């Protein structure tokens, strides 16, 4: 009986005066400690980005100096001058062969690099390849939509540059003892002015092949569309020597 008044009192009490322990639904998060781990991937990606920025800046400076109106004419002098400028910037950067490939794809991303001018771009990539620490460089460019010109320019002795995909005009011009492998097609003026070394094209090659070449060998596993005025050196088409050999008129279709 003594308890009865108490019970009644309890019932009469408004909830605010007799608060029930309310459980915080986020209680568990109070003791939750978020474990964030630094993994080597973060460092690798960060350093890759830093190098890419440097390479990009070098290319932009090259364009500022050599293609002010975003127009660039392929001439002997412009090629030499642009390459010298590219060399100057490239020498200051520490990069790997993979950075060169990433740069090639970044060229097609207008968000990252606003202007892709195939001539200066090719010379810049050539300079990057020539000054890379690795003796052998593989560029997987099969998915690249643009065929870049002037790849393999002045490839020095002891370097091997393998390009997966097709290349544009003036591939491997002025090669200086290096070995250039194109695992696709190469366009016109391939190997022009090369001095020594080897160019291997796995598919077909365009007109003016080996124009003014002074030495070295060009091997084509597909068809040679036309030879240029060759001074010295050898050109093979499907293992058959086509220069020097029977008279094959330069720059003609056959």
């Amino acid at each position, binding site marked *: 009986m003594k308890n009865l008044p108490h019970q009644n009192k309890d019932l009469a009490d408004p909830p605010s005066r007799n608060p029930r322990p309310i459980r915080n639904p986020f209680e568990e998060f109070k003791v939750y400690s978020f474990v964030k781990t630094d*993994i080597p991937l973060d460092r690798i990606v960060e350093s890759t980005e830093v190098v890419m920025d440097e390479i990009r800046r070098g290319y932009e400076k090259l364009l500022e100096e050599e293609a002010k109106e975003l127009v660039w004419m392929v001439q002997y002098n412009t090629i030499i001058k642009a390459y010298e400028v590219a060399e100057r910037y490239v020498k200051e950067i520490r990069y790997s062969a993979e950075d060169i490939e990433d740069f090639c794809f970044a060229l097609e991303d207008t968000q990252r690099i606003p202007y892709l001018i195939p001539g200066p771009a090719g010379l810049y990539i050539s300079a990057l390849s020539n000054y890379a620490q690795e003796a052998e460089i593989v560029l997987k460019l099969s998915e690249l939509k643009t065929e870049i010109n002037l790849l393999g320019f002045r490839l020095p002795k002891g370097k091997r540059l393998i390009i997966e995909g097709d290349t544009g005009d003036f591939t491997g011009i002025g090669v200086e003892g290096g070995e250039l492998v194109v695992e696709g097609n190469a366009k016109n003026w391939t190997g022009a002015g090369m001095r020594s070394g080897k160019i291997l094209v796995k598919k077909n090659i365009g007109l003016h092949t080996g124009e003014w070449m002074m030495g070295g060998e060009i091997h084509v596993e597909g068809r040679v569309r036309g030879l240029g005025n060759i001074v010295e050196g050898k050109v093979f088409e499907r293992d058959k020597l086509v220069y020097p050999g029977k008279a094959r008129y330069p720059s003609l279709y056959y």
Partner: protein
Amino acid sequence: MKKEKHQAILDEIWPRVKRKHLYPEIPMPKVGELGDSEEGAAGKDEGVGLEMKEKQMTVNSAFLSSLKGRIPEEQAIEALLDHGITHYTFCPWDFHTHVALYAEAKKVMGDKALAKRAANYFIDVVSDTHCVKKRFSDIPELHRSLKKGKVEEVIASLYQRIWGIDLGVSSSGKSGKGYEEAVRRLARIPYLDRSRWNESILKFCRTMKPLLLEEQQGEGSQGGKGESSPTGDHDFNNYSYEEIDEGMREYASEKMALSEFREMVEDFSEELKEAGYGMEGGMGRGRGTSIDADVLFYMKLAENYAIPLRKVLVEEKGTLHPHSHAPWEVGSPYQDVDIWTSFGKIMPGITQIWKKKEGKGRGRVEGTPDCLIAIDSSGSMINPRKSLSYAVLGAACASNAYLRNGSKVAVYNFSDAPMGGKDTLDYTDRREAIYRVLCKYFGGGTALDLDDLVPLIRSRKNLDLFVITDMKITNLEALISYFGQIENRVTAVHIGENPYAARFEKAVEKRSNINIFTVKRKEDIPNIILGKIREYFHSTHRGP
């Protein structure tokens, strides 16, 4: 017995795992015996460790038993759960991302099976790396204890490099020195940057392609059909019908490219059919016979546009009353939503709308008339099965608007109709049938056969007409004269300025029921049609 033991372990660790992943909305996982586990156990690998079907994870008991002595069962279960949950919470996250990753992979791999495999590897690398970085996980332990093929060994070498954890893979292993370059390339990819996944998977595939080709050739010579990933394969079983539907819609609107969409649908036709996509018997739940990718493209693309229709006074037998429930779709009228059965949520799959039915009696009430769509598919129009036709898209959007309001749509597709270049569909509410006729392309000249149109118009008391053409109709005068006699609302859309269009405009300028919209750029058709229709219906029909 083993199964019960594994289930008990899972029950014990599940709250901890769930908490670690910040309470994801997924059901309690189960332990079971998965289909190919015996085959796998007998073979060189352990089979599949985890299966995911519509968010339900099932851990393979046989797989756990096969790992005995190499990793404690508790650790293996936790690692599998971490892996599975991360697919829901990080990568691929949804169907659209999954398909987008696959489409990018296909660009490099060229082959459907290889692209699927490459995308699966990429998704696994992203998920496991996310787990290792963001959550304390036993995934490295699991990888250390798994038997590896050549590709798995390269992936494990990659993990060693990017996680900084020894997984017991040496450079002199099966992958050897030849793959050192591949690992170096793979390690440079920003796996955890979601905004760069499309670019990253291209890079990933470029490096993995020779390895996967080699693996495929090896399997081909052994007559194998390809290994399953020990942490489970990623197929469309992971997604519900609604998720797939939503993903298709997003994919269609993002790409706006018919050929890419068609390629994707064809590549995944089996999986989509499993999920309930099939034209026969309706593009809905239930297994059909074939998927018309082009029709599906316009269907999903049109779902991204919603046209509100202003009702008009129509004579009915009686007023409408709520009769039954139907699932809500994007674009369905909000006023018909039943908030009580929809739990206050507007979300496809949850929200329900009232289907209304006429009661007894007679009177004039607000309603939506049926619609006759006349679409020109002559040679001067774009072939909707070759590239995106804005004319078909516009007509599809208009038909959706009527169907959503419970009206029926008839289609008259014509080129040189008197010579047989035509297809007619009577009034129906079957969406796929309407789309099929809209997507037909005849080519050739343009002439209407009024004998086809008249019965379709006369059979209805209340009817809207929607004509989409370039107006280069040889018997335009006959059409003008016919339009001069009818009182129905007519929306005529013509492409470009030409003398025929000018003649039509001049002839019907005094007719208030006919509205003409000129589209100078074909690409503007969807926007202009939708905007103008909205304007038109809102301004001319103000209700009783």
